[in-house]
């Protein structure tokens, strides 16, 4: 496993012909428009507010001037360190301390770049901000660092997409994402993660060990994580919310699909510290092939978190009898006025549903894709529109070969 | 005319920042049955909860007297002891507590408030059996946990059974007809009518005129936007049925 490499100084591809053909095939399946494909492949400058981070280095950030007019800062974190040192100093590491865990420490030691977002007081970000992460280099790890600060009464929706071409070696992705929501602020963070999962025998693939944490620091603040996790050989990822401000709210909506020999261990932590804080967790896991898919989550109410509320729903679907689905919630109530409700189910796709679809002419794979998309609908609807369509297709692709 | 059993004067109440009762005035003399009719969301169920003392509501103005005594100063159990009974629109299910255990506790609580000793088990059983007979309530229903898995009709019959056993002076029936088919409605109405006496007053809260064919009111009030906007005899209910509530809205729709 290789850790870090900056992009080689070889010139960027000038046309799609120079881009990894397997990657293009993947984009084809995804139905990503050519324009966007070119952006993703680094051929043309993008026309949405995109920060493209390749091999840990932020290569391009767009729409900056327009955003700057309303005071929004959207740039690479290396630039932010130079240009906005006081903000970076104040907030970087304030949510995820350097010593938080092994991979966070590693990230803190070697991170070179990532995205930085600052939304000033009272500003509603006029467009979706987006970062595409790519691991291009062979034998490398990616260690980007993202910091989003939403001042009082502000709002931002942030999208994160991840792709990597196929490589034989395993590569490490150990990112750190920190969100800070101040009074009445709202941050919506959406991820579609489709790192290379390894080949059909489980060779290669990305090790995706990500530390994502949001701090609802102000009263009435809100942080919402939505994720579609389909890629990577191994994923350990627990986007969390620290509900510090009174009446603050945390949400976690997750779809985690594992096929082949993938191992997914993902979930969330909702730490209720403030009064009348609430959280909601909807997690849908789908395991196929020889994979293992685990939901691991923690909900805890501190003694001072009067009136804390949590609702959790974890559903797992098994496709085939060689995979595993696991649910491991930690539910910790230290306050009599806290009300926690947790529910989990595990089952397979119903034979009746399959038969019905097939009778209407869908083949096995199409039927599974249809039923699974229904199963995850509650989560999909929390994604921004452009990610929703992409995700539906991604789900179908991820489950290819799962029906014997 | 006798002194009123229930006297509501300029009652205002709100939940959080929303004012729901906006000056209710109502006086019900002994032995009379009044109906309050209003569209959904007009605040009529709030009125029943406020009278019974649910603490989600804040009383901002006004007073309520039950037989001359200040009702609003009392806890819900004290109001019950003073003779107020609310038949809930949605009776609460309480797993693990058998209906029988609950009835006994409620009856004994009431006796205690009157300074009487506890009922003996045979006396209790006799009372329940007698009251249950007209309501088609059998022993097996009483052994089940309170309201748990009861059908709509069973829940409403159980409410009327409690009303019969606790013998209140003021009964409030909140949407007692909701969720009942015509047969069940007749059984419940028969039970309620059997409890009408010259001393006991009743307030029937309903959305439909249908119930009032079976439980005939002395006075009908129209409730709109948190207050009573019109009162009349039972023909008012028929008028409402024919023309709808629109005519009575305080502000034009």
């Amino acid at each position, binding site marked *: 496993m290789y850790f870090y490499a900056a992009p080689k100084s070889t010139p960027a591809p000038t046309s799609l012909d120079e881009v990894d053909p397997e990657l293009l095939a993947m984009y084809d399946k995804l139905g990503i428009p050519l324009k966007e494909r070119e952006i993703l492949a680094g051929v043309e400058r993008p026309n949405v507010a995109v920060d493209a981070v390749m091999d840990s280095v932020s290569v391009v950030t767009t729409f900056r001037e327009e955003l700057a007019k309303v005071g929004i800062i959207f740039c690479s974190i290396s630039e932010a360190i130079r240009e906005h040192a006081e903000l970076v100093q104040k907030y970087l590491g304030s949510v995820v301390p350097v010593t938080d865990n*092994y991979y966070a420490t590693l990230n803190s030691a070697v991170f070179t770049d990532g995205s930085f977002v600052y939304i000033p007081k009272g500003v509603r970000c006029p467009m979706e901000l987006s970062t595409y992460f790519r691991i291009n280099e062979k034998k490398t790890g990616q260690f980007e660092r993202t910091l989003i600060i939403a001042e009082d009464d502000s709002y931002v929706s942030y999208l994160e997409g991840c792709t990597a071409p196929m490589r034989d070696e395993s590569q490490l992705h150990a990112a750190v994402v920190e969100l800070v929501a101040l009074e009445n602020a709202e941050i919506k963070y959406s991820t579609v993660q489709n790192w290379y999962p390894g080949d059909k025998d489980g060779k290669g693939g990305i090790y995706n060990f990500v530390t994502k944490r949001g701090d609802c620091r102000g009263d009435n603040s809100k942080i919402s994580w939505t994720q579609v996790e389909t890629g990577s050989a191994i994923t350990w990822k627990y986007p969390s919310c620290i509900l510090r401000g009174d009446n603050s709210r945390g949400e976690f909506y997750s779809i985690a699909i594992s096929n082949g020999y993938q191992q997914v261990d993902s979930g969330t932590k909702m730490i209720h510290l403030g009064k009348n804080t609430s959280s909601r967790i909807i997690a849908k896991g789908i395991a196929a092939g020889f994979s293992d898919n685990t939901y691991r989550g923690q909900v805890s109410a501190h*003694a001072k978190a009067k009136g804390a509320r949590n609702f959790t729903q974890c559903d*797992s679907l*098994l*496709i085939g*009898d*060689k*995979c*595993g*689905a*696991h*649910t*491991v*919630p*930690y*539910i*910790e*109530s*230290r*306050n*009599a*006025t*806290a*009300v*926690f*409700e*947790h*529910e*989990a*189910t*595990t*089952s*397979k796709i119903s034979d009746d549903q399959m038969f019905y679809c097939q009778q209407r002419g869908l083949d096995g794979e199409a039927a599974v894709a249809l039923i699974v998309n229904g199963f995850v609908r509650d989560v999909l609807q929390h994604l921004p529109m452009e990610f929703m369509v992409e995700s539906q297709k991604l789900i179908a692709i991820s489950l290819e070969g799962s029906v014997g | 005319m006798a002194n009123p059993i229930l006297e509501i004067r300029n009652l205002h109440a709100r939940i959080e920042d929303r004012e729901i009762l906006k000056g209710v005035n109502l006086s019900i003399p002994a032995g009379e049955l009044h109906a309050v009719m209003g569209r959904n969301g007009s605040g009529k169920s709030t009125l029943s909860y406020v009278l*019974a*003392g*649910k*603490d989600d509501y804040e009383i901002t103005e006004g007073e309520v007297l039950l037989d001359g005594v200040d009702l609003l100063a009392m*806890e*819900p*159990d004290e109001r*019950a002891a003073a003779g107020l*009974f*609310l038949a*809930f629109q949605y*009776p*609460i299910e*309480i*797993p*693990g*507590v058998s209906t029988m*255990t*609950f009835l006994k*506790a*409620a009856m004994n*609580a*009431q006796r205690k*408030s009157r300074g009487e000793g506890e009922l003996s088990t045979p006396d209790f059983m006799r009372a329940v059996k007698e009251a249950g007979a007209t309501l088609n309530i059998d022993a097996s229903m009483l052994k089940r*946990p309170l309201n748990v898995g009861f059908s709509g009709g069973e829940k409403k019959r159980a409410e009327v059974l*409690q009303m019969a056993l*606790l013998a209140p002076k003021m009964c409030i029936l909140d949407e007692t007809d909701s969720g009942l088919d015509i047969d069940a409605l007749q059984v419940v109405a028969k039970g309620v009518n059997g409890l009408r006496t010259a001393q006991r007053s009743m307030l029937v809260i309903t959305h439909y005129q249908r119930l009032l064919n079976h439980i005939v009111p002395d006075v009908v009030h129209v409730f709109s936007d948190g207050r009573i906007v019109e009162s009349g005899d039972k023909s008012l209910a028929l008028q409402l049925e024919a023309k709808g509530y629109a005519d009575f809205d305080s502000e034009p729709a």
Partner: protein
Amino acid sequence: MMLKSKMPVRLNAAEETLIAQLRDAGDGAQAERLNVTGLPTRRVESYHYTDLKMLLKAVPPLVEAANSASAPALRVAGAYQLLIANGVPHPGTTAPAGVIVGTSDGAALSAHDDVLVRLNSALAKKSLSLTLEGSVDPIIQIDRRTEGAAAHSASSARIFVADNGSATILETYSGSSEAHVTNNASYIAVGRNATVTHITVDLSGDGVTHFATNEYVLAEGAKLRTLAIHAGSALARTQIFARFAGEGAHGDFGGLNLVGDGQHLDFTLDVNHGVPNTTSQEMFKQVGRGRSKGVFQGKIVVARDAQKTDAKMMMQGLMLSDQAEILSKPELEIYADDVVCGHGSTCGELDADSMFYLMSRGISKPEAETMLVRGFLEEVLDPIEDDELNEALTAVIDDWLVGAKQR
């Protein structure tokens, strides 16, 4: 975790004593193992909420007790009683029809990667041994007692219920309130198409540390109902390890954690559906008063080919104090696809609407509270059909409700 400390653990007094006791008992291997690992901390997943290294301050000497003349804390009319005092089984001389009673050398539990199991297996010298055949009429009560000054004891029972048999077994733990540490084990094999009810009630005194491991193996068509009640001890942990070994078996696993001020009470459950076509239901309730900690860890495991498993687990917690903690970790570990498994976990205080309903019927606030708590708790007794037994268990709850109020 990826980064394991290579540092040797620093042993505390309790660990030192346990290691010495294991050596004295001739189990050098276990002594060495404990010497290396120490007692489990919260980093050991199955002890996440019950950090034994921190909680177990001292272990008293292993002292056996003679037969006891006093009565157990819980009596059920007509029950056939067997005594185990400070770990020593005292089988009676006469036994009811269908009951063969005796003792056997050594402990009863199967090997399990768990420190309490290892300690019991190393330290229990004799097991009470019971074979139950046909329809056994009286309730079999195993009265496990702590006698005299603070002692560490390992107690063990091995129970075989023959094919097609039926039996109700009640185990009670009570005795002196000194700082005893008791490590109890029961191994119960339920034969083909046999029906067994197994109830354990911890009524140990205030100073006692109570550990119990109940291992169940269910053969084809077996029907098992268990109920474990914690109503005593300072620190208690009951481990329930159930293994479905035959198709068509069904298990109902119940538990009641009555946690009062100063107590730390833990139920840890591992239900393993190892073969196809088995079903289970788990229902655990916890209520916390004062400054206390109630723990529930419940895992349902469905093996790769255990198709058609149907398993449903529920934990309900009721918090009656702001200083109470209720910690719950229900887990599903599923390797077969054609299954219906689920769990639920809820926690909160008394329902405000229920309180209002009861009070609107004239029932006073304290009475309404007691009524709701009792209703919440006594629900788990509903399936216990034997009237005498049901009443005795109801009394345990009622006594706790009264006693806990005084705390």
